[in-house]
């Protein structure tokens, strides 16, 4: 439609991305499992991956290494309502999918995006096992991971602010 009322219409710039173009960057994983890729991983394999690709920054016992900036990944249960809360995957993270999602996009820090999906499932399984969230023989994949119940799954509430209500 020509003429200056065309703004009401669709402008239509841009192109239609191919499925492959979308798939290549549609890397997120959601709590209900949407976005999780095929493949699977084991705790045993994850132990190897972790030792080789993660331990240098996060510590052999997942305790974190301050100087490397690698966060502590496990522990801290029961500390959230104390004066010294320890926030880790184990104590704080509400969804297991976030471990897969974040490792896939950002870890290992020195080689982001370098792991295979199998390695990511595995290292996720390993961390969750070391966090006493899944058993040693549990296999992580698009079906099992969303079913993992995280200790702090009910730990989040919506934002009630303004919570200090001084009004004029």
């Amino acid at each position, binding site marked *: 439609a020509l003429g200056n009322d065309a703004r009401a219409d669709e402008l239509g710039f841009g192109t*239609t991305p191919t499925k492959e173009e979308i798939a290549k960057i549609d890397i997120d994983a959601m709590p209900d499992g949407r976005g999780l890729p095929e493949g699977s991983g084991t705790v045993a394999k994850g132990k190897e991956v972790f030792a080789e690709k993660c331990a240098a920054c996060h510590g052999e016992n997942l305790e974190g290494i301050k100087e490397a900036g690698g966060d502590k990944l496990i522990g801290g249960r029961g500390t959230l309502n104390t004066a010294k809360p320890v926030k880790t995957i184990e104590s704080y993270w509400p969804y297991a999918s976030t471990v897969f999602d974040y490792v896939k*996009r950002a870890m290992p820090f020195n080689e982001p995006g370098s792991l295979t999906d199998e390695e990511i499932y595995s290292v996720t399984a390993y961390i969750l096992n070391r966090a006493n969230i899944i058993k040693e023989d549990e296999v992580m994949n698009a079906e099992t991971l969303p079913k993992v119940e995280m200790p702090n799954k009910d730990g989040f*509430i919506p934002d009630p602010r303004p919570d200090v209500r001084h009004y004029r």
Partner: protein
Amino acid sequence: PQPTRRSFFLATAAAAAAAGTLPQLARAEAPAGAIEFPVPEDPTKVQGRLTNDDGGYGTRSQFETEARWRFGTATKESSWTMTPLASGLGIITPSGLHFERHHGGIPTINPANHSLIVHGMCDKPKKYTMADLKRFPSVSRTMFIECSGNGLTEFKQPTLKTVQGTHGLTSTSEWTGVPLSTILSEVGIKDGAAWILAEGADAAVMTRSVPMDKAWSDAIIAYGQNGEALRPEQGYPLRLLLPGYEGNTHIKWLRRLEISDKPFMTREETSKYTDLLADGKARQFSMTMEAKSVITFPSGDMKLPGPGFYEITGLAWSGRGAIRDVEVTVDGGKTWNLASLQGPVLPICHTRFRFPWVWDGKPALIACRCSDETGYVQPTIADITAVRGLNSVYHLNGIMAWAIGADGSVTNAAHQV
């Protein structure tokens, strides 16, 4: 593996020397953002620098030294820098001094190879090149962005010395881009869509979930900052702006928007950027930056030369709209006086306030508090921690105070008003 500022300058001097054009170096090195030029004894007696010999894009004076300050995080890839608010004038932050928060360093992106893909719960997924995006109707808006971690060191006690350290994670620019609502109309949003994942093209592939109503209301896909392209540190070539929301949600180097029914629960909105309360529960999606203000002059680590007149000045801002008023106390909160606001007072924008003061030379406790157009009044830090406890990291918008000693020295007096 990049030339540092230092190697950059030294090399310049060396090359100039080689070419026989070495300026008389008054000092070893010009500050970042400047080039060292010779200083004539009397500038009226010799011609100055030649017009446009800077290549057509100027630099600041070699005598200006303020710089962003990096918080000492473990890595320089995941780190942040703070704007030197104390030397700021007016409301615009020079683009070179805009605060930064990176999680995977600053990517160098060729805009010709960059695109934004919009997909998910929509009728027509789209891929936009930068040229495509620039075809759409555009909008500009002068607006602050504040990191919700601004002030995190001050929750429990006064910690950092300067206002750059206590408040420097906020900056204001005139941003330009395409209203996100235009793009949502173009792709045709499906019923039930409620959240959008915004994703960056940096090494952290940074992601946040954005509520659909915010996306429709005032979000902007920005390619411009202060009259030119975004700076690399601010997301060049493309950044999502969510006016009034915490800085982390303004995804830089934007490459993807996925429309969904549910939030994506990324690491940045679960592990980080959630507000842990005393009872162990944590607030999530606490997006809005509430009204806040701070005195930037006089401020920490300065020294007043002696009793007499001073213009107290500072900034106020609110993620909920325009600042309505700013009050200043010079007696530790006993009395509060209205400051004057520099116009135009824009919604969701730094607002410069000024207040004339004659210092009598005795110890003084000065502070400011603002209110915004919703009527909300900036609370004290104690008010906030009374409700939220001491374990929160983000969203500290309490009143900041500075103590002035009899010798004119100014120190951090957070929690004292």
